[in-house]
């Protein structure tokens, strides 16, 4: 047997596609070609079924009932936390806080750790490729505290210039926050190296993992970061659920940021004692069903093999990048050496919105616009880009469809 086995032998994308019912549907009379995975991913039948089963057979409130269903729901909800803990390789379930998504995770750190620890004159360091959700929470915090937001620049390939990042780290830097991978360009940051640099300067490290988790195996202990947060819906799970990993010692010392039920031990009008980790940060009835659905999604991608998914997506990235060279006037924005399967592009003569509308007529879904990264668009001097982002169920044939669709765009604009 030859050793040169193509990944397609071990990764059966046709079989994978059968798990996603929405991929069977047609759009505008065409077979759907879904290339907007960086915005949100489609859900496998396994996740859909798990949500249905929860509501049909297990629905109950958690952590408070003595009855049978509450025990079942609590076990499933806490089981989901354990799944996430293992998925991220966190030390303990106490370090996993359920949130609505990445944005809430970042805001939690800014509002709880940040408000407690930041002083006037301190600095928060981010990078030029951040999503608005990793910019605005820090701006709010800095404005309140009289602190300063610093931004590490990127080079023309869309890579963070690590030397510049290092130079901006000083004893004033209290927080370094950066994405694992860029939603707009696909750039994968050297998060371990950046974490070491930030720690050496005495800053804590917050990683926006929204685009990391879907494409890369994650090990928070290996990265060494203090916080890592991601969204379920970008990794084949439900919307409205995500998680924040935080190092236990830090979480323990942080004040709660929302008050309510479930996050307390005892309440009197004089004094309230807060619950233990991670419940201190989960006020109110949580999003039980979707937390369980998220765990099912992580189990699902685990069963396909994270390394195999990454290899499949990398193949699509290389193939699509190569084929897009055929399109006259096409410029790829973001040519990082380490890149997730996201391709941002412009056409010389056609605005991204017009591209998006014409592709949509062909059943091809891409994102057009500034991708919630306006400062980054300014850096590359474009008002907007088209973005094709590939997921675990995409195929080379779909990359071909994109190329054919773009040829049609040029035809319309003659």
């Amino acid at each position, binding site marked *: 047997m030859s050793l040169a086995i193509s990944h397609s032998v071990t990764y059966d994308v046709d079989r994978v596609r059968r798990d996603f019912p929405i991929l069977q549907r047609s759009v505008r009379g065409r077979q759907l070609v879904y290339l907007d995975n960086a915005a949100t991913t489609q859900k496998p039948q396994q996740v859909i079924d798990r949500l249905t089963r929860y509501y049909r057979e297990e629905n109950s409130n958690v952590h408070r009932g003595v009855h049978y269903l509450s025990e079942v729901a609590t076990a499933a909800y806490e089981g989901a936390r354990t799944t996430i803990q293992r998925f991220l390789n966190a030390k303990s379930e106490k370090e996993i806080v359920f949130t609505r998504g990445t944005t809430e995770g970042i805001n939690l750190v800014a509002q709880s750790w940040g408000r407690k620890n930041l002083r006037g004159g301190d600095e928060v360091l981010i990078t030029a490729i951040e999503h608005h959700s990793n910019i605005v929470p820090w701006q709010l915090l800095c404005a309140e505290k009289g602190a300063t937001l610093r931004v590490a620049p990127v080079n023309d390939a869309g890579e963070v210039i690590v030397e510049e990042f290092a130079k901006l780290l000083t004893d004033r830097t209290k927080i370094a926050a950066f994405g694992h991978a860029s939603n707009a360009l696909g750039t994968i940051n050297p998060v371990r190296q950046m974490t070491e640099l930030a720690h050496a300067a005495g800053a804590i490290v917050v990683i926006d993992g929204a685009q990391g988790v879907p494409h890369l195996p994650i090990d928070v202990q290996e990265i060494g970061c203090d916080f890592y947060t991601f969204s379920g819906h970008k990794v084949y799970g439900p919307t409205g659920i995500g998680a924040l990993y935080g190092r236990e010692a830090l979480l323990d010392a942080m004040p709660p940021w929302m008050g309510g039920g479930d996050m307390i031990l005892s309440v009197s009008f004089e004094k309230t004692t807060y619950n233990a980790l991670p419940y201190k940060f989960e006020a109110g009835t949580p999003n039980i069903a979707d937390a369980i659905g998220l765990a099912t999604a992580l189990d699902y991608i685990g069963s396909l093999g994270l390394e195999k998914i990454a290899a499949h997506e990398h193949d699509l990235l290389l193939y699509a990048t190569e084929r897009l060279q055929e399109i006259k006037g096409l410029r790829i924005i973001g040519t990082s050496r380490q890149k997730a399967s996201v391709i941002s592009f412009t056409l010389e003569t056609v605005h991204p919105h017009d591209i998006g509308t*014409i592709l949509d007529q062909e059943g091809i879904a891409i994102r057009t*616009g500034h991708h919630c990264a*306006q400062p980054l668009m300014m850096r590359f001097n474009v008002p*907007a880009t088209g973005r094709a982002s590939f997921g675990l169920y995409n195929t080379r044939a779909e990359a071909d469809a994109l190329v054919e669709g773009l040829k049609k765009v040029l035809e319309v*604009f003659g």
Partner: protein
Amino acid sequence: MSDLRELYQQVILDHNKNPRNFHEMAGATSKVDGYNPLCGDHYTIFLQVDGDTVKDVSFTGSGCAISKASASVMSATVKGKSRDEIAKLFDTFHSLVTGEGGSANAAELGRLAAFSGVSEFPARVKCATLAWHTLNAALKGDSQSVTTE
């Protein structure tokens, strides 16, 4: 392709490629910015208003073909018209692109009729109307920027 040809009519492609009145205006009586924050479309409309009459219109900025052609055709159409005439044109144009007005009077619309295909593309209505909303704000004397979101 037929819907696309309806959307991207020759007039639109032409005005996108060679926008009319596409420059800043010295001596403008008002100047208003229009944004579509979700798209990143951004135009500045310059007006010279004399009493009730819009003497001159020009614009600068960038955006998709629909928004740019709309700004261009609008600038050519409203020049020399009164506030009332412009308000009526905007109403008719709005009905046309949203598909809510039945069959609009083609003679009344002139070149603006080229935007009839937009009604089949609800996501693009805001592109077609951005310049008009901005003009409206300028005529009302709003100095603040407007958005279509």
